[in-house]
C-alpha cells in the first residue's frame, strides 16, 4: 500500500501532535475508513455519514477521507444484512443508524436480523420530529390537524420519507394516538423516497401535511415555504426552530426523537471498536460538531459505547411496545 502509507503516517503524526489519545487507542489504525449510509443521498443517514465523516477528517481523527457508500433499500435492511452477512469482520467500517433502524429491528422488518448481530458505537445527537403544512394551509396547529382527521380521515394525506410502518409513519401515529384518534389505521400516510421528495409534494399540494425530522425541513422552514405546526420534542428546540411550539404545549403529549448514531460490524475487533467509540465521542464533543448541530436543528444526545447499546435496546423495547399497542405488530 504505497499510496496510503504516507497519508497514514501523516495522520498518526497529527494525532500524536494533538496529544488527545491514550496509548492503547493507537493499537488500531484503520487503513481506509468507510461509512455506509443505508439510504440514497440527501436523507438523514446520508447527512449523518457525510457530516461526521467530514468532521472526523477536519479534526484529523482518521487517515485520509472517509468514503461514504449509499446502500439504499428496505428501510436500511439491505445495508444491515450486507454488514451482517458479508462485511461482518471489517474494522474500518461504520454504519449510520437512527430511530428508524431501531423501529425496523423492533418490528422484525430486517428478516432474521437482531441488534445483537452488530456492535453499537455511539450517538451524535437527536433530531426531533416535526409536523408541517404548506404556507397557504388553513391549518395552524396540531390539534386542528387532528380534529380534521377525526372528522374526515380521508381528507388528510400525510407524506413522509419512510416506508409504511417506518419511523415517519409511526411519529404521526403516536401523535394521533395521544390526540385521541381511535382507529389509527384510518390515517392516510404516503411513503416517498426520502424527506426531500415528501416536502416537495407538500409544496405541490398533493398532500396536506408532512412529517419528518427537523433537519430534513430546514431549507424550507428558512424560506417560509412550509409552516411547522408542531415539534415532537419535550421542550422547545434551541436556534431557529425555537419559534415553533411543541406538541406538548398544544396539549398533545407526543414525543418523537430520532436519535442519530452508528453501529459497526459484529465481528469488529475490540481494539477497532474502542477506536471508533473514542473517535465518534471526540467528534460529538468538538465545537465543530456543536456548530453543525445548531445549524441543522439537532438536539443534544450524548451516549457512547455500552451506554449507547443499552439505550438502543430500551429504544427497541419501547417501540415494539408502541407498535403492538397500535396494532402494527402482534
Amino acid at each position, binding site marked *: 500500500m504505497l499510496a496510503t502509507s504516507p497519508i497514514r503516517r501523516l495522520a498518526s503524526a497529527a494525532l500524536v501532535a494533538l496529544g488527545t489519545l491514550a496509548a492503547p487507542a493507537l493499537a488500531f489504525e484503520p487503513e481506509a475508513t468507510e461509512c455506509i449510509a443505508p439510504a440514497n*443521498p440527501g436523507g438523514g443517514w446520508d447527512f449523518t455519514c457525510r457530516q461526521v465523516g467530514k468532521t472526523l477528517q477536519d479534526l484529523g481523527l482518521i487517515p485520509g477521507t472517509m468514503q461514504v457508500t449509499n446502500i439504499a433499500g428496505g428501510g436500511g435492511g439491505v445495508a444491515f*444484512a450486507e454488514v451482517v452477512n458479508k462485511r461482518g469482520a471489517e474494522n474500518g467500517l461504520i454504519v449510520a443508524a437512527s430511530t428508524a433502524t431501531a423501529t425496523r429491528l423492533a418490528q422484525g422488518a430486517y428478516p432474521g436480523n437482531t441488534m445483537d448481530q452488530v456492535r453499537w458505537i455511539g450517538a451524535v445527537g437527536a433530531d426531533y420530529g416535526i409536523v408541517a403544512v404548506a404556507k397557504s394551509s388553513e391549518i395552524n396547529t396540531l390539534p386542528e390537524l387532528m380534529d380534521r382527521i377525526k372528522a374526515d380521515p380521508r381528507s388528510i394525506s400525510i407524506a413522509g420519507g419512510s416506508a*409504511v*410502518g417506518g419511523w415517519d409513519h409511526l411519529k404521526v401515529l403516536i401523535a394521533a394516538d395521544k390526540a385521541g384518534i381511535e382507529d389509527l389505521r384510518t390515517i392516510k400516510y404516503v*411513503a*416517498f423516497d426520502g424527506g426531500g421528495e415528501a416536502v416537495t*409534494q407538500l409544496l*405541490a399540494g398533493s398532500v396536506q401535511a408532512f412529517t419528518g425530522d427537523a433537519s430534513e425541513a430546514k431549507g424550507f422552514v428558512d424560506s417560509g415555504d412550509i409552516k411547522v405546526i408542531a415539534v415532537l420534542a419535550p421542550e422547545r428546540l434551541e436556534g431557529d426552530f425555537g419559534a415553533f411550539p411543541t406538541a406538548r404545549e398544544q396539549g398533545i403529549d407526543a414525543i418523537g426523537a430520532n436519535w442519530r448514531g452508528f453501529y459497526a460490524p459484529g465481528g469488529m475487533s475490540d481494539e477497532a471498536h474502542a477506536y471508533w467509540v473514542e473517535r465518534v465521542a471526540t467528534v460529538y464533543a468538538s465545537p465543530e460538531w456543536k456548530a453543525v448541530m445548531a445549524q441543522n436543528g439537532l438536539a443534544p444526545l450524548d451516549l457512547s459505547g455500552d451506554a449507547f447499546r443499552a439505550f438502543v435496546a430500551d429504544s427497541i423495547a419501547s417501540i415494539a411496545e408502541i407498535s403492538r399497542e397500535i396494532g402494527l405488530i402482534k
Partner: protein
Amino acid sequence: MDALASLADGFAVALTWQNLLLALVGCFLGTVMGALPGLGPSNGVAILIPLAFTLGLGPTEAMILLTSVYYGAMYGGRISSILLNIPGDEPALMTTLDGYPMAQQGRAGEALALSGVASFVGAFLATWGLVFLAPQLVKVALLFGPAEYFALFVLAFATLGGIASRNQAKAAFAAALGLGIAMVGVDGQTGVPRFAFGEVHLYDGIDFLVAIVGLFALSEVFIFLEHRGEDTVEGHASKVGIGRVIPSGRLLARCTPTMLRTSLIGFVAGVLPGAGASLGSFLAYSMEKKLVDREGTFGKGDPRGVAAPEAGNNAAAGGALVPMLALGVPGSGTTAVLLAMLLALNITPGPLLFTQNPDVVWGLIAALFIGNLMLLAMNIPMVGMFVRVLLVPPRILMPIVAMVSFVGIYGISGSTFDLLVMVVFGVLGWVLRKLDVPLVPVILGVLLGNLMEANLRRAMTISDGEWSALVASPLAIGLWTVSIVGFVLPILFGRVLRARMGRRKDEEGAVSD
C-alpha cells in the same frame, strides 16, 4: 437584467486559473468515465468527492470540478454507444439506435462529431434555461404530483412502440420483460421483498448499470465468441471506415431544428425531480421520430436520431440542476450526489440558496458555460482519435470490452454477486439478440418501472383507491391525451398507410401485367 449581472459576477468567480484548470481536469475525466461502460456520471462524481475533500477545495471550486465531471460524462457516454453499440451510461442508451448503424455505414466520425455538437447545443441551451428560468421552473416541478408522474411514465411507454424494432410485439415483450425485472427487490411502499428468493443482494433490485453492461457489452462478446473464426465478423469490422470527422454544414443545418426541439424536451424532463436524464433522452428520441421520421430512416442510421437523444440528455443534465439548487431535491442519481456534496460543505440547497450563496450558484453556472465550451473544443478534435477504436480487430477489442465490463461493475459495487448478475444478463442479451428482440425497451422497463409503480401506488393511497384521481388535473389529462394519441395514431395510420401502399403495388402490378 438581474440574472445577467449576477452571471457576470459568476464569471468573475469562475475565471481564475485554478478554476479553469479544475474545469479542464473535470471535463477530461468526465469524458473518459462516461465513455467507459459501467462508469456513468453518478459514479464519476461520487468517485471524485474524496479528491475534492483531499485537495481542500472550497464549495465553489468543488462544485466546479464535480459539475465539469458531470457534464463531461454526459458527453462521453455517447462514444461507446456509437462505436461499439454499448451505452457508456444509461442516458446514452438511445444514442445506440442510430449512432451504431451510422458507424456500421462508415460514418462513425460524422456521428461522433454531430453528437458532440448536439451535446453542446443541449447543454448550452439548458444552462441558459438555468440562468433565466430556475426560480420559475421550480413551479413546473410543483405541478407534478404522483398522478402526473404516473401519466408521464405512461407517456414514455405509450411512445415506445415506435422505437428499436420493426416488430411491435417484440418491442412490447421486451418492455414487459424490463418491467418484470424492475419488480425484483424490496417494495418501498410496504418494505416487503419481492422475487428476491431470500437473497439479500436482490433486496436492492437490479442495478441498471449491471443490466446495461450485461445486456449490451457481454452479449456482444458472446456473439463474437459464437462466430469465432468466421470471416463475417472480422471482415465486417475491417470494412468499416472512419468517414469524415467534421460534419458538413448541410447536415448540421438539417439537424438544427431537431436539436432545438429535443433540447426543450430534455430540459423539461430534467427539471422534474422524478423524471431525469434517461427519460429526457428517451422522450426526445421517440417524439422526434414521431415528428420527422417520414421515410422510416430512424433506427437505420439517421443523423437526426443521433442528434435528438444527445441534445435531449445533455439538456436534461442542465435541467436536473434546477430542482437540486432551488428545491434541494435531486432529480437524478448524479444530482443526488452533488446535493450531498453541498450539504457536506455546509451549504443548504433550497429556496434560499440563490440569495444566500449567490457566489456558489453563479460561479457554478458560469463554470458550466466554460466547461461546455471546453468539452466542445476537446471533443471535436478527439473524434479522429476515438474512431480508431473501430480499426482494432474484434479479436483484440472484444476481450478488452469483457475486461472493462467486469472491472467497471466490480469497481462500482465491489460485489461478486453483481458480476454473476451481469453474466446472467449477458446470456439473456445473447438469447434476445438471437430472437431479434430489441434490447433498449428492456432497459427502459427496468429504469422506469419502479418509479412508475411507486407513483401509481402513492396516487392510489392519496385518493383512497379512486382511479379517477389519475385524470383529476388538466396536466394529467393532457399527458394522457398525448399518450393515447401517440399510441393509437401510429396503429391506425400505419394500417391505412400500409393498405394504401399495398393497393398501389397491386395497381402497379396490374398495369405491368
